[in-house]
Every structure is written in C-alpha cells, then in structure tokens.
C-alpha cells in the first residue's frame, strides 16, 4: 500500500531538488524532511479535489513552515492543483510560486505563511469554524520543530484544547535542526510529546519517513474524541540525500552542479 506513496514521494523529492537547483534558492533540507508527510496527506489522507480547490467540504492543510513552500508547490502540481510545467517558474519574476505560499494566488494553498508561529493559530480558527458549522472536514497543520519556540503556538495549543478541537491535527516535523543550529544547542523544546499531553492533547510519535506509520497516525480512525491531536514526526533534514541528511548546513544551501548530480543519482537509486 505504501510503496506507491514512496514512489510519489521520491518523484517529488527529485522535482523539488531540481527546482531549487534551477532557481538558485530554496530550503531543500526542510523540504526533504517534510515531503513524506505532505505526500501521505495529499495522496492518501486529505479529502481534496483539484477540480474544486474551494470545495467548502474539503479538508484543510496549513503549511506553517512556509519556507518549504516549494515542496508544497511540487505536491500540488503532482496532485493536479497547478500545472506541472509551472514548477519551473519557482521564484522567477511574475510567477505565483513565491518563496512563501500565498492563498490568494495559488489554488490549494489555504494560508499565507512565512513568519513562523502563524499557522497553528489560523488552523485553530479553521477547526473552530468547522465545529461552528457542524462540518465533518478536518484541519491539518505542519510546523517545524524549531518553530515551536514561537510563543504564539503555545497560545494556540491552549485554545485548541480548551475548545476540544478533535478535528485538528498538528504535525511537528521534528528534524532536530533549525536554521542555524541544532535545537539542542539553541532552545531545546524536545521532548514534545509530554508537553503536548500536559496541555491536554492526544499525542502520537512516529517515524516521519515511514509511510505506513504516517498514514496510520493521520487516519480519522485514530482521532481521540474531544482532544486535538499532535503527531510528533521524527524526521531527518535532507532525508534521502546522504550529504544533506541531518546536516544543518543544508537549511537553505543550494547544491552546485557536482552536488546536484550526486544528490539526483542517490534519489534515482531509491526510485523503483
């Protein structure tokens, strides 16, 4: 079941890498860490329709770590929200594929993000609105682990528990690295699970690169009634590319031609 998703994720990794290489900018490390989660969401979990991106009954995804927008663009293209040809316009003049996602420009984008700590409060509002309408759709939000240092997230965590938002799922992309250093050496919030549990959330910890585990944790069958859910996804920044993996230098570094060839070769080697 998961192998198909793994193939899609592999394609998305290669297309993302190519895009960052050609644009000469991007956040390749964090993109590699979140791509498996995005793939599972868009190709298995989310109820969304590329033909009707504004369908009121759709599930919502907020990518709060907005700097990894290019991964989301590639996923949206692969899923049919935007033409695949358009990916090559990333960061180019007149393109709607900017460095951070814009909901007023790109179909499938739910929220403008970029400044960290914005997505979770907005997702709480979306989930609250769904409760108000007695609607069945779910809201998912992906934050970076370093991003959890922003206090606004903890405001939202309190409010979500108080509101009993069991239609809200927070996925923390826990790759242990932030822009300039390890979390451990910066402001170490880990472990996340006991903190979220203490705030009244249902928490599950998974391998964020194991498709079966991701799909199981995000399935509606695992929702705990009356509680918002947090999935702590243990990931690697730069996953799939040996010299980028778990290496803080690759937050927004761009590969040179030799590195690009090697990275692409490694990814092709794992494509089936």
């Amino acid at each position, binding site marked *: 079941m998961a192998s198909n998703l793994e193939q899609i994720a592999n394609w998305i990794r290669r297309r993302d890498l190519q895009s960052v290489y050609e644009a000469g900018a991007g956040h390749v490390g964090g993109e590699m860490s979140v791509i498996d989660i995005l793939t599972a969401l868009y190709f298995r979990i989310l109820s969304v329709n590329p033909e009707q991106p504004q369908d*009121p009954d759709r599930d919502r995804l907020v990518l709060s770590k907005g700097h990894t927008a290019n991964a989301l663009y590639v996923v949206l293209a692969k899923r049919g929200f935007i033409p695949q040809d358009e990916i090559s316009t990333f960061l180019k003049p007149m393109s709607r594929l900017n460095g951070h996602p*814009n*909901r*007023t420009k790109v179909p499938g984008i*739910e*929220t*403008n*993000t*970029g*400044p960290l*700590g*914005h997505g*979770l*409060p*907005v*997702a*709480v*509002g*979306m*989930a*609250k*609105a*769904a409760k*108000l*309408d007695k609607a069945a759709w779910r809201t998912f939000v992906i934050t970076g682990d370093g991003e959890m240092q922003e*206090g*606004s997230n903890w*405001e*939202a965590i*309190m*409010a979500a528990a*108080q*509101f009993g938002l069991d239609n809200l799922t927070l996925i923390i992309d826990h790759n242990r690295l932030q822009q300039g250093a390890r979390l451990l050496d910066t402001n170490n919030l880990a472990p996340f699970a006991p903190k979220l549990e203490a705030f009244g959330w249902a928490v599950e910890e998974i391998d964020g690169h194991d498709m079966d585990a991701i799909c199981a944790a995000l399935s509606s069958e695992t929702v705990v009634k009356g509680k918002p859910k947090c999935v702590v996804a243990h990931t690697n920044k730069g996953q799939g590319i040996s010299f980028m993996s778990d290496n803080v230098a690759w937050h927004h570094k761009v590969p040179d031609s030799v590195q690009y060839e090697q990275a692409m070769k490694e990814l092709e080697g794992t494509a089936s």
Partner: protein
Amino acid sequence: MSGSLHLGDFTSAANVYGAGGMPRYYGDALVASAASDPRVVALGADLSAPTETDVIRDAMPDRFFMVGIQEANLIGVASGMAKMGDIPFANSFSVFLTRRCYDQIAMQVAYPKANVKLAGFLPGLSTLLGVSHQAIDDIALMRALPNMTIIEPGGPDQIVPAVKAAIEIDGPVYLRLQRADRPLQKDQTLPPFELGKAQTLKDGADVAIVASGLMIGQARQAATKLSKRGISTAVVNLHTIKPLDRNAITQWARRCQLIVTAENHSIIGGLGSAVAEVLAEENAGARLVRVGLKDRFAEGGSLPYLLQKYRMSADAIVEAVVEAS
C-alpha cells in the same frame, strides 16, 4: 482637575451606572448584527466587559469565543474563521490589539484580505491606566497596512453605523472605539455617517478643524469659542481615516486659510499625518496645524487633565488657531 476618575476601563459601564442605565452601543450593535447575519461571531482575549462583548457572550453564547489572554492567537483564530466564511470581530484594548500582534495582523489579516474586524477600545489618552494602556500609535500602525480600512466613530452613538459599515466591507477593518462613559447629552449625539465621506458637523469659512473620535467634542467646543471671537470655524468629522476622503480635505483647504487636525493619537502617522500628505500632494494652499500628542508618551490621568496638559483640549485648539492666524 475635573472629570471622571472611576475605573471604568475594567468594568462594564452598566455596572457603574446600574444595569440598563448605560447605553452599550458596541455590545448591542454586535448582538443585532449577529442576530441578522449568521456569519458574525465575536472573539475575546479576556476583557469581555470592557469591550462590551459580555453582551453577546450572554445573549448568544454560541457566537462568542474566548481564547484567553493571548492576542497573537486571537488574530490567528480570527483569520482562520474568516477564511472559512465567518465574520469574526476580534476584541481587545486598542494598544494590545494592534501593537502586540502586528506581524499576525499584517500576514494573516491584511495581506490575505481576511474578513476580520478588529475592535479596539481605550483609544489614545482615554484611560487612567497610563502609557502601557494608551494606544497612541494604533492608527499609524494600521494605516501602514495595505487593505486595511480604519474607522474611528465621532462619538459612542456612531459606533452603530461603524459596526454596520465594517460588516458591509468584505475585508479587514480596524474599529477604534470609545465607549460611552455616561448617557449622551442631546448636544453630544451625532447623525450616522457614510463610510469614506467626511462629515461636516459645522460650517465655517476661515478655519476648518478636521477631527476624529473624542476630539470631535473638543473641536466643537473650540469652534463655538472661535466663532464668538469672529473666526468662522468649521468642524469636520473624519471618521474614516483610511481610505481618506481626499476630495473633502482638498476642498476645505481651498476654502479656508487654516486647517487644524485634532486627534487623540500621536501627531506622527495618524490623522494629522494623513491630512498633511493630502495637503502637500494636492498643493492645496492652506496652513496646517496638528493638535495631538506631540511625539511623546503621556502618563496616567483623567482625560480632561491629560487633554489640558498635552495641549489637546478645546482651549488648546483655540490657542493654536489664534497663534497661527
């Protein structure tokens, strides 16, 4: 030193004056709007009574949501609800609602044109509680944001048309609101206004005082005093600070030799600055004097005391006009 010293900031005015004895223009307008429009909801960050949201909380508990003391999340939640089709009113004191969460307002409300209404209370010097609670730069902050409409009603009774106008706008609105602290006298009431159109409250040929919010009262008193001295003085209620009625300002500047702006705010970035920009760009000719807080923080104190001390009272406006004439 005259004026009320009661700590109404943290209480519902009804509690001070007795239930039913005090008009709660905002609270009632919100309930009326929510009753007629199912999209309207209210969000609170504590401070229910001083933002009059206890009215909707008690009347329509399924349309009021308390997030707690957390303004950044308040704005995020409001944005999320707006994106799902609701019309959330986010309520707090102006100073917290604008300064503490400016990044969230910029990125989650203004930039995506989210249909969020920001309702801020305790404008400018209208609080005893001192600098921490005095919003003296909120208009400047909101005015700098693209897509933002700014409305400051000329008096508490104009809150009703302000709420109505805010709902009719499909996009972000900042309402700068001052609650009635006592029942309005007949000469304090104002007719409803039309959004974006400066409202002439008194005609005049020599001087035009362009004011907003509680400075309307000072401007009207000043105009009466000036007229007695033979200086024909107009009073213009510039309730919509953005988008600005440039045409009206230009016409007043062509007609009168002196324009005085009167604002309960810093003279930097607010009404005075907005009018100055128009006068300069239109080369309209009139002199300009800005009455307001002159690039400094104030302090805690009663409103009459602070207006007098910081040269923002009716008498100070009269003196400013005489000096400039």
